[in-house]
């Protein structure tokens, strides 16, 4: 991209400049001993064309919508359509959450996203002894199809897409959504959305467990296969790095482990006999947007380029759409502080901006009170406005990939790609991600990175405003959302009503049928849908899974 003579001139000029820089720093030293990203990547004082001297624009960067998609997966990107503003929401009962959904849609969000409570996430009904004290506390309580019907009441699910953050019982919640839609006369071929359904990152980071890795992969492959044939507008996996990052990984680890998980899912689907171009277009991704602005932008660009190369060269995909890394982003929860919570609005803004400059398809912005509780309506609205102001007022969406060509960003993009591929090779050599997980490899990499970062914060090598610098003498408490303590009792009452009013013979029959199907190797989705339509509860179904597939327990390594 640069001619040899210019590069020589620049090299000479840079030598002179570094000499000048050093003269200045002899008189007054640099303000830090070491300049590094939040992931502890060292950053130079300047980047020049020399850092990307052999950059081949058509081959390495290209244009949006053109392989390897560094600048974006679609040709038009935000010139055609802004990213989906999709605020993660869930609290208390299905009715409480339905109200929050309506509020967010009225305030301008363009996609739905569901947060479930711990019992639902872990596959327990509200009346399980394990669920005591947990109902509705970190998301919505869903015990059966009845709750799902209330959750989406009055929402145009034939026109708006819905994401559900759910993992071990993803097949069940998806079945409930499909059943709810069909009961409303909406065909499964029309509904669009995403289920997270990414168990590998559960074992690595988010830790909502149920069954061991191998049967979990079977369940996931069943959903991919079913989606490919029956629910074509649905993204059946959201291959996630968000949680890996929240658990304490570096940006490169987030990138590498996510794509390695993706590789494992592709291999599982191919082993099932599916055609790559039949399912790959519906694989989607989910990344974190953390504090270091440029590191994140480079990460997103590297991710697109890497995945398209993996899909084309490693898996020989032919359809263009199989090469697209489409992703949702959430701003980093772990970067927010309990101290001086209004600072979190600024953190979220910067992180959201990075995601937009990185070309995300969909975005959730955290609320200022997210460290302390489920967001209040006011806090969630400010978070949504953050996206709207970036979109409508800042001008950054006027042109596609505005940072393309920056010496710094292109260099970072390349370096992160190279380092992430090294990690992927390591994991391949171990026998793939499932094998790596069984050896606790990604889990320990993350634990090491998390501990290192904590020590850096405690020693003030890394600054956290309001926590280890610019600390308030006295914190002014803000009002936070409380979940109704009576809800657990009410939810159990409603659950019992569902059990009384359904055809219990039918439920018993279909659960037996499910058990047999689990023992065999037919696709489980049709019988799961049958079960939820008969108002079998979530746990009645997961108990069958646990019974047949076994239970996974945390190895407890640290």
């Amino acid at each position, binding site marked *: 991209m640069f001619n040899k003579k210019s590069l020589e001139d620049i090299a000479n000029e840079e030598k002179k400049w570094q000499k000048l820089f050093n003269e200045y720093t002899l008189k007054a030293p640099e303000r830090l001993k070491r300049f590094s990203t939040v992931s502890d990547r060292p950053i130079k004082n300047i980047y020049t064309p020399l850092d990307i001297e052999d950059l081949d624009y058509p081959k390495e960067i290209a244009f949006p919508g053109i392989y390897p998609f560094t600048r974006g997966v679609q040709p038009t990107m935000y010139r055609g359509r802004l990213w989906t503003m999709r605020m993660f929401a869930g609290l208390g009962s299905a009715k409480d959450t339905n109200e929050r959904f309506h509020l967010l849609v009225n305030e301008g969000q363009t996609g739905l996203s569901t947060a479930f409570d*711990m019992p639902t*996430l872990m596959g327990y009904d509200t009346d399980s002894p394990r669920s005591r*004290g947990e109902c509705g*506390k970190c998301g919505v309580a869903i015990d059966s199809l009845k709750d799902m019907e209330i959750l989406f009441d009055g929402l145009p699910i034939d026109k708006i897409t819905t994401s559900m953050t759910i993992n071990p019982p993803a097949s069940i919640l998806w079945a409930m959504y499909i059943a709810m839609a069909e009961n409303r006369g909406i065909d499964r071929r029309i509904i669009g959305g995403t289920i997270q359904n990414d168990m590998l990152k559960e074992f690595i980071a988010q830790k909502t*467990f149920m069954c061991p890795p191998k049967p979990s992969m079977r369940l996931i492959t069943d959903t991919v296969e079913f989606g490919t044939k029956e629910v074509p507008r649905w993204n059946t996996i959201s291959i996630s790095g968000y949680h890996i990052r929240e658990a304490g990984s570096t940006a490169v680890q987030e990138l590498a482990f996510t794509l390695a998980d993706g590789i494992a899912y592709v291999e599982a689907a191919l082993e099932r006999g599916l055609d790559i171009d039949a399912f790959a277009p519906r694989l989607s991704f989910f990344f974190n947007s953390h504090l270091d602005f440029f590191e994140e932008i480079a990460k997103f660009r590297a991710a697109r380029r890497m995945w398209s190369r993996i899909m084309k060269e490693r898996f020989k995909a032919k359809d263009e759409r199989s090469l697209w890394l489409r992703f949702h982003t959430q701003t980093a929860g772990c970067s927010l502080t309990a*101290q001086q919570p209004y600072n979190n609005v600024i953190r979220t803004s910067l992180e959201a901006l990075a995601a937009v400059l990185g070309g995300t398809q969909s975005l959730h912005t955290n609320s200022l009170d997210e460290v302390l509780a489920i967001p209040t309506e006011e806090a969630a609205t400010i978070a949504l406005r953050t996206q709207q102001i970036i979109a409508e007022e800042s001008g950054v969406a006027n042109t596609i990939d505005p940072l393309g060509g920056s010496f710094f960003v292109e260099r970072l993009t390349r370096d992160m790609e190279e380092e992430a591929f090294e990690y992927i090779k390591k994991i391949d050599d171990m026998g793939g991600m499932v094998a790596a997980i069984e050896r606790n490899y990604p889990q320990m990499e993350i634990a090491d990175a998390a501990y290192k970062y904590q020590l850096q914060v405690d020693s003030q090598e890394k600054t956290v405003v309001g926590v280890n610098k610019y600390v308030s003498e006295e914190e002014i408490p803000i009002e936070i959302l409380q979940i109704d303590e009576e809800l657990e009792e009410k939810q159990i009452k409603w659950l019992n009503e569902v059990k009384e009013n359904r055809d219990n013979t039918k439920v018993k029959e279909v659960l037996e049928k499910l058990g047999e199907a689990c023992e065999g190797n037919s696709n489980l989705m049709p019988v799961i849908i049958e079960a939820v339509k008969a108002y079998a509860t979530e746990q009645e179904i997961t108990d069958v899974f646990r019974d047949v597939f076994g239970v996974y327990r945390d190895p407890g390594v*640290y």
Partner: protein
Amino acid sequence: MNKERRIRVLVAKPGLDGHDRGARIIARAYRDAGFEVVYSGLHQTPEEVVQAAIQEDVDMIGLSSLAGAHMYLFPRVVELLKEKNADDILVCGGGIFPEEDIPKLKNAGIKEVFTPGTPLTEIVNWVKENVKPRGL
């Protein structure tokens, strides 16, 4: 003569909460500080926590919660320790707690509650100052 005994701590994750970044960091910090550490792993019922604490003969249980179920889980652990005559095991907590819950937890027998942003050295020093090896 009593020989010098190291402080033994059980770091535990009661309930369904899977957020274990902090608990695992604390476990390492305790280990680096010279305590004997047992980490329970995730998804322990209060009964399992107490059984482990007694079996492992620990001096303190550190409970971690970031998913909002602490008002049931933490007092329940204290209650079970009392039932089993093991309430000389000190219980403290760490994680995410609304301000107003902290005095309630302390009233229920949680000795100290550590909230986000607390440096590791502060926690380690608190343990050194407040936890005595049992039976000494």
